[in-house]
């Protein structure tokens, strides 16, 4: 095994471990897996196996051994290294999930080809092998058993694969049928051997004895087996829990402890402490109450309105140290007009935080309707009159009112009833 073979795949999958390929395989995926591992075209590997098979069935043994010991993985060789004469059986490079429909048909086609090849080779093999009379009689049952075992083993692979790629209901029936066929083949083979041995007349008693043994073993070993699987699943559960705990601990360590340190250092600076505490609270809340994975990566732009409002409020809150309370009713995906509205809302929040922040928290309310999106930003500051704002101050006129009008919405500024200012932004939703 030349480990240093220059393979293009090597840099895609850094841990170069041998796996059987689950994609586009014919039988066990051994050839594809090996080809991917060694950087050879699959056809070569398959031909080598065929050749070795001719050599007194060595290839079959080898193949079986690989099948048995090498775990099923994903990937294998890409389309590039595939032979052109194989009717374009693979269209996509290695790990492609979610193409069940096509993948299923493709694999079935490959299986037929593989089966045909196997039958042909077996016939050649049978023809070429020169065994003694009696031994030769066992060949057919042996082959039957082999085929059955292969079928069942592939079935086990599929069961594993089904956990990664969800297999549809239709496949489920097919899987059962295949298991049944495998068992039938093995059964026929074994019975054939019995018959050849001439012990057919004792078949009934033999079967009875075998059944008794099986039942006995099940009775003896059953409890242990059940206990073992239970222990295993419990252990898995514990491991998952431990992992989760470790993650929580890591998060708490990363953010909470650091914030607490910062707060201790800035104990005299009330505003800064409040800002830190609020930022930390929001972060932790996000992390605890949001569904998995959404709390942490904040790099990408939000595509939903609610998320966008919350994000804007959080940023303004951080920057200006004024608490902003956000209430969002409903949600919808953002489009260009709504993005403009969000920008206007953000500007309103900045204004509210800057000029009205002394009076208490800034309140942001967003409501998504069937027809429109309404956003209100209100502060409890001194309030201001738009007419008194000099014409050269563009913040409110351009960033809020102008922006809304350009995008077909409306913006209203007015003194709020209890003191302070309220900005109301309304935008029609695009017809969906």
């Amino acid at each position: 095994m030349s480990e240093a073979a220059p393979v293009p795949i090597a840099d895609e999958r850094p841990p170069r471990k041998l796996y059987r390929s689950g994609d586009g395989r014919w039988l066990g995926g051994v050839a594809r897996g090996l080809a991917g591992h060694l950087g050879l075209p699959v056809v070569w590997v398959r031909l080598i196996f065929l050749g070795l098979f001719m050599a007194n069935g060595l290839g079959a043994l080898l193949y079986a051994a690989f099948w048995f010991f090498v775990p099923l993985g994903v990937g294998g060789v890409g389309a590039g290294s595939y032979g052109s004469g194989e009717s374009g059986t693979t269209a996509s490079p290695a790990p492609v999930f979610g193409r069940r429909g096509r993948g299923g048909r493709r694999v079935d086609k490959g299986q037929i080809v593989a089966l045909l090849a196997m039958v042909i080779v077996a016939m050649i093999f049978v023809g070429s092998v020169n065994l003694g009379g009696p031994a030769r009689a066992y060949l057919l049952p042996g082959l039957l058993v082999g085929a059955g075992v292969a079928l069942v083993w592939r079935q086990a692979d599929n069961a594993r694969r089904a956990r990664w790629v969800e297999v549809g209901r239709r496949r489920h029936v097919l899987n059962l049928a295949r298991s049944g066929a495998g068992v039938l083949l093995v059964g026929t083979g074994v019975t054939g051997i019995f018959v050849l041995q001439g012990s057919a007349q004792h078949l009934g008693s033999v079967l009875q004895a075998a059944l008794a043994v099986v039942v006995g073993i099940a009775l003896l070993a059953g409890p242990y087996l059940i206990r073992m699987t239970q222990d295993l699943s419990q252990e898995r559960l514990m491991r998952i829990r431990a992992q989760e705990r470790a993650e929580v601990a890591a998060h708490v360590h990363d953010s909470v402890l650091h914030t607490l340190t910062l707060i201790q250092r800035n104990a005299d600076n009330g505003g800064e402490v409040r800002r830190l505490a609020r930022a930390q609270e929001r972060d932790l809340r996000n992390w605890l109450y949001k569904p998995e994975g959404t709390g942490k990566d904040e790099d990408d732009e939000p595509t939903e309105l609610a998320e966008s409002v919350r994000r804007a409020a959080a940023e303004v809150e951080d920057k200006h140290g004024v608490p902003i309370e956000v209430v969002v009713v409903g949600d919808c995906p953002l489009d260009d007009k709504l993005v403009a509205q969000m920008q206007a809302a953000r500007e309103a929040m900045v204004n509210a935080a800057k000029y009205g922040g002394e009076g208490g928290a800034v309140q942001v309310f967003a409501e998504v309707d069937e027809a429109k999106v309404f956003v209100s930003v209100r502060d409890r500051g001194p309030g201001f009159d738009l007419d008194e704002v000099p014409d050269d101050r563009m913040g409110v006129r351009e960033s809020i009112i102008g922006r809304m009008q350009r995008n077909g919405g409306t913006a209203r500024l007015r003194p709020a009833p209890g003191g302070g200012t309220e900005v109301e932004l309304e935008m029609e939703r695009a017809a969906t």
Partner: protein
Amino acid sequence: MSDATENEGERRVRVVLVDDHRMFRTGVQAEIGRTETTGVEVVGEAADVDQAVSVITATRPEVVLLDVHLPGGGGVEVLRRCAPLMADAEEPVRFLALSVSDAAEDVIGVIRGGARGYVTKTITGTDLVNSVFRVQDGDAVFSPRLAGFVLDAFASTDAPPIDEDLDRLTQREREVLRLIARGYAYKEIAKQLFISVKTVESHVSAVLRKLQLSNRHELTRWATARRLV
């Protein structure tokens, strides 16, 4: 804000604090417990569900400040076990949820359990005193966030309801809720809608009632849909 407490200058309200953090209880006690100025008298404290039930039964306060997350089953369990006290016609015990969590399921859960309001722990002392008095009067106290959740909940159950008049919020109630969600005080809402504060309060109480009812009706709907009844 302050005139509410001025008006109630003569009034007293007996309160029980239920929270599993002693520090927090001490803090609330210090904030609202100066009976002479606030009119609030803290008559008992409890740290878990069992304690809470026994303290509440023993002292019969007018208002209970109830934490949502408690050892022994949480605030909902306290509400369940105190249901007979709440239903008392003469001296009902009323519950105001006071929690650090503002997750929707917590909020809606205790409101449906029978709490008369929900405020978060970031609330100021005066606001809390105000809310306690309002709850004592039998009114509901809605924080903006709670109003948002309610709007959300009623908006999402747009499937044809069986008893429309009971289940749905009227236009006016929706309007009031919206203003609460926008951070308006009840008084400001009254001014905005040209109605009296009492009317606002009755609208809010109606919302609360419907919220509790909708629980039962949703259950019925759920059961009928599955042919269980």
